[in-house]
Structure formats: C-alpha cells, structure tokens
C-alpha cells in the first residue's frame, strides 16, 4: 500500500522575498501574501468553521506577520511561522464564539477508545463519485466540524496542507508524540464518520 506524500514544496526564492519584505519592500510582502493566502484561509476556515472569522484571520495573520517580520529569526520556514500566527488567531476567534467551552490545543479528549474502529465495512471503489461536488463538500465539512478543534487543527496542517510532523509540532508548539497521537485519532474518527456515507452497499447505489 503506497504512502501519503506531502504536497507543499519550499520555493527557493522565499528567503529573498522575506529579506526584501523585512527591509520594507511591500511588493515582496504582497508576493508572500499571494503565495500563502489560500492556505491561511483554508486553515482558518477549518479551525473556526466560520467564513467571516476565516476572512478576519487571513487579514490579521498577514498584518501580524508583517508587523513582526523583524522578530522572525528564520529558524523555520516563513510558511510555518505564518501558520503559527494564523492558528493562534483562529483559536482566539473560536474562543470568542464559544466562551462556554475551553478551546485549547492542549486538550486531549477522552481515551483511545474514541478512536477504536467500529465500522469495518469496505468503501465503494471511488466513494467521492457517489455524490455531487456540492454534496461531497457538505459531507466533508459537516464531518470535520464534529472533531474537537485540537484534532482538526492537526489534521488540516498535516493532511490537507502537507506540513511535516516536525513542522506541525513547531507551528502548534506541541511535542511530536502529541501531534502523532492527535493525527491518528483525527484520521480514525473522520474515517469512522465517513464510513456511513462511503461504505460499499451491495446492490445499492451507495447513497443514503
């Protein structure tokens, strides 16, 4: 069985852009915005589950990055540093919307039992083709929304954005074992929840 490969490559000219932006070149910073605005928006929307909040996160994360460029020591990639800022902004907005709930990346909810597979029916060969694009997005959105914020944050960074385990740990200020533990549980919980939509139904069309 083949493995999952990350999809983000480090652009070689990034250091030049960062140095130029640090020196006050707004065009260089605009280039960095263009390079990563889609990623930041996707991460923010995954975490906040709210479109308006995601838009605010994009603006505030880039503004904060710009204002703090001088403090960026370049020990990590610019993107990892930016993600760290964006995740903090997104979690802050989530806390504002849900003051009744503690929202923290440190939360380690329940035991491993919550991730033990119960559904072991195989899926249809091309499960995403059982639904229209719109239906599929609704299913995927609804499903990931049900995960605790700490799980979906790790999942989106590792599996959607393609950060390495080390970069994810760095961006979230978590240990590598903590990232791996949350990632496993996020993956298994998503799999479990998607099974009801995607499992192979002999003689059926796969739809509910």
């Amino acid at each position, binding site marked *: *069985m083949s493995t999952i490969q990350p999809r983000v490559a480090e652009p070689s000219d990034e250091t030049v852009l960062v140095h130029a932006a640090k020196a006050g070149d707004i065009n260089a910073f605009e280039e960095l915005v263009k390079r990563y605005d889609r990623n930041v928006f*996707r991460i923010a929307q995954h975490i906040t589950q709210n479109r308006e909040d995601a838009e605010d996160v994009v603006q505030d994360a*880039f503004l904060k990055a710009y*204002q703090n460029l*001088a403090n960026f020591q370049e020990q990590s990639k610019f993107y990892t540093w930016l993600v760290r800022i964006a995740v903090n902004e997104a979690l802050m907005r989530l806390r504002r919307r849900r003051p009744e709930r503690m929202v923290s990346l440190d939360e380690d909810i329940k035991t491993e039992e919550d991730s033990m597979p119960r559904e072991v029916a195989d899926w249809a060969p091309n499960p995403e083709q059982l639904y229209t694009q719109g239906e599929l997005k609704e299913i995927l959105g609804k499903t*990931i929304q049900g995960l605790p914020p700490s799980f979906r944050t790790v999942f989106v960074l590792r599996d959607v954005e393609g950060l390495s385990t080390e970069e994810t740990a760095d961006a979230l200020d978590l240990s590598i074992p903590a990232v791996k533990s949350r990632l496993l549980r996020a*993956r298994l919980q998503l799999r479990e929840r998607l099974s009801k939509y995607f499992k192979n139904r002999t003689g059926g069309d796969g739809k509910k």
Partner: protein
Amino acid sequence: MTCSDFLKELTDYLDGAMDAQTQAELEDHLQWCHNCYVVCNTTKMTIEIYRDSHLYELPEALRDRLRTAILSKCQSAKIGCAETPVRRRSSRSKS
C-alpha cells in the same frame, strides 16, 4: 502483532515513516487481517478525499478584496525593526 499494535503504527505506516522491519511486520499483518486492511485502506482514502476536496477554497473576488485590505493595513502599520522605515499613510498605525 495484534490489531491494537497495528493501529498504533497506522499513522507512521501511512506516512512512510518507519523502518523496513516494522513495515514488513505490518504488511504481514495486513495479509491475513481483513479488518485492519479495511481500516488502513479507508483511512488512506479519508486523507486523500480531504486533500483533493478543494474544501474551503478562497474565491478569486474575495481573495483580491482581502489582499487589498491586507496591503492597505500593512502600509499603515510598521515593521518592528525594519532596516528601511516604512512610510505611514494614515494615523491608524497599530504597531
């Protein structure tokens, strides 16, 4: 290897982050354990479906609007210790 052992290694297995011997043991387990095979296969599909879903794409019109707003705010702000001072264009500087 038990199913529980397999599950603990699943993330590293899917990420290809393990030594050859452990990988061989996992693959041996997959040969005879149908449940673990299904869990492994459908977990991999879960990751691929999310990765390829284009969930929460940023529409171009919104993207342009956000970028304009970001750059406008940046021009009003100041980089902490920029080597070249950034000219302020408004009194709403946040730095």
